């Protein structure tokens, strides 16, 4: 019999990936977080509280929806959509922040910080901080502040402070750097809510576990809807939290797991954000994982139409699943993403986030590998409202 999947190990490694590569000042804070997380895992009161918040505040479970016209269009397997876009705040990100804010409260922290790329994690963090009355600071690359201005305003409406980060490439990776620096400085009273399955242990594990509600719901919903597990699950991958959340409960099952990275202007151009497709292992933001780096070990600038995927690294568990062959990782370029964005809007009445549209872009190829009796599920990780202005701009449409 096969061993049950149990990564990471006690040191925080998924195979050889992950770990805790941070300045010394943070080690104690990470150890404390790990201990506290172990305590709440077996605390039924805490778990009940999370379940209640997920039901009443987030609106879970999110539906599993049969995409009839998309299925007809591709003439292949039945296509089902896991509707994380219908969650409160519009994306899967809230699954994680609901859990982490309760952890923060339990640890007695009074100040919350977070990084954000597309702004969805910033909104999800500001939302839960507002609800619990905690001071909240969001770090966001200055370039992302420009291209996601709607979310910046939402974060401010929720009472949080937005700090534009001008250093480096002024995108998500630099926002992470700055959040880590804040944490080093204010470690006594501050809780850092990391938004993806990246960063030092125990974050990749905690963020995965809080997002795994998506996969657990899918087990029941697929049994109810088509009396079997899905034949494949598809999700976009930046840091990889929505993907790992829906993949994780299926790792020991006979289900194809397909992650889709951002090929930006094309893998061949080098201007992309697809470290699993065109990167190599290294250390960034506290963990060992696949990265986009140059021959001297400097982290490279990335390019993607979506701010949320514009990141040179990826969660260590994805690196492990890639090397072990358990999950497949492909990449799609900006142009095909835009096509998919319009296609889903027009065929199903669902305007996806640009990040999410990546998971739809390779459907032509993927559908050809399945027959009409099979079922594939796509994680609709977020809705596209935040992207409307930038899509219009890209297409030369004046909304003013």
């Amino acid at each position, binding site marked *: 019999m096969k061993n049950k999947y149990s990564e990471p190990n006690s040191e925080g490694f998924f195979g050889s990936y992950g770990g805790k590569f941070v300045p010394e000042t943070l080690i104690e804070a990470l150890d404390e977080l790990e201990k506290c997380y172990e305590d709440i895992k077996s605390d039924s009161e805490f778990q009940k509280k999370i379940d209640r918040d997920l039901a009443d505040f987030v609106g879970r479970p999110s539906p599993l929806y049969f995409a009839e016209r998309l299925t007809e269009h591709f003439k292949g397997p039945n296509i089902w959509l896991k509707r994380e876009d219908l969650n409160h705040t519009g994306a899967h990100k809230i699954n994680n922040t609901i859990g982490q804010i309760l952890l923060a409260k339990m640890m007695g922290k009074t100040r919350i910080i977070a990084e954000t790329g597309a702004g969805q994690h910033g909104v999800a963090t500001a939302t839960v901080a507002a609800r619990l009355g905690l001071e909240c600071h969001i770090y966001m690359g200055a370039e992302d502040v420009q291209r996601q201005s709607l979310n910046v305003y939402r974060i401010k409406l929720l009472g949080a402070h937005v700090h534009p980060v001008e250093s480096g490439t002024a995108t998500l990776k630099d926002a992470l750097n700055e959040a880590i620096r804040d944490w080093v400085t204010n470690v006594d009273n501050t809780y850092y809510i990391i938004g993806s399955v990246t960063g030092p242990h125990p974050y990749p594990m905690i963020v995965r576990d809080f997002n795994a509600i998506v996969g657990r719901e899918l087990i029941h919903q697929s049994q109810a809807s088509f009396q079997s597990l899905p034949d494949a699950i598809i999700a976009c991958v930046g840091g990889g939290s929505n993907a790992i959340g829906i993949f994780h409960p299926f790792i020991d099952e006979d289900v194809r797991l397909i992650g889709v990275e951002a090929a930006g202007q094309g893998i061949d151009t080098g201007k992309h954000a697809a470290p699993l497709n065109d990167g190599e292992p290294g250390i960034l933001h506290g963990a060992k994982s696949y990265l986009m780096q140059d021959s001297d*070990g400097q982290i490279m600038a990335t390019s993607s139409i979506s701010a949320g995927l514009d990141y040179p690294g990826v969660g260590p568990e994805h690196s492990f699943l890639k090397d072990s062959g358990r999950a497949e990782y492909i990449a799609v370029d900006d142009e095909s993403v835009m096509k998919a964005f319009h296609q889903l809007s027009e065929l199903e009445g669902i305007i996806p986030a640009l990040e999410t549209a990546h998971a739809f872009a390779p459907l032509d190829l993927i559908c050809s590998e399945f027959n009409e009796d099979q079922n594939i599920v796509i994680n609709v990780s977020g809705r596209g409202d935040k992207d409307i202005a930038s899509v219009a701009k890209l297409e030369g449409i004046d909304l003013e």
Partner: protein
Amino acid sequence: MNRIEKQLVENKNNNIKSLVAYLVAGDPNMDDTLSLMHGFVDAGVDVIEVGVPFSDPIAEGPIIQSAHDRSLANKTSFEGIIDLISNFRKKNTNTPIVLMGYLNSFLKNQKAFSRFDDIGIDGVLIVDAPGEYSLKDLGISNANVVSISLVSPTTTKERTKKICNASSGFIYYVTLKGVTGSSNVDLEEIKSNVIDLQKNTDLPVMAGFGIKNKEQAESISKVADGVVIGSYLVESIFEAKKTTDYKRIYNYLSEIKSVINK
């Protein structure tokens, strides 16, 4: 014996407090870095920490971050830094040199690591490498290169012991919770923590992060075996770059060296 061990033991035996000075390789350019290193030594610096610039230096405050960015914009490479040290050694074979940087740079250049002692690099301080790991654990081993670790105000007693056991050369005590160059140093807290730390190790303890003025240096040197000056020097180098007149910096270092040995 490694140059670091030799120099620091000699200082300790002669009751001399050590001065460790940091600069970023390639800021403002490699030629100036080389002449600054020689100037540091003439001013009384005992150990030079040469910063290896990295694109994502998470432990650095704005001053050193900007220096890393400027150096990378000058196309500073790891090979270039090795050349810098080789050139320095043509004139100076005594002063210990430590490379300070981030793990990804050292892993990516691990082939060069085995040559470090031949080149004249005596130690490394890898900011994001867990202190309880030895260089061998990290896959970059060279028996003749010392591995300097950081101990911070948040490090537990149990960890302090582990870190001291895995370290060599000296222990770098981080004087504050924060990034390099912050201003919230608490002299009394530093002193009592350094005394605790010394109970766990025979290695010399150097204290740094946020030390700028003579008063701070003098006070800390009452207990520590030496002080590290970083951000203040990097800022002064930046300010002086138009004139390339670094005399004021050398005078400052001489003064620090003399007050810590008052």
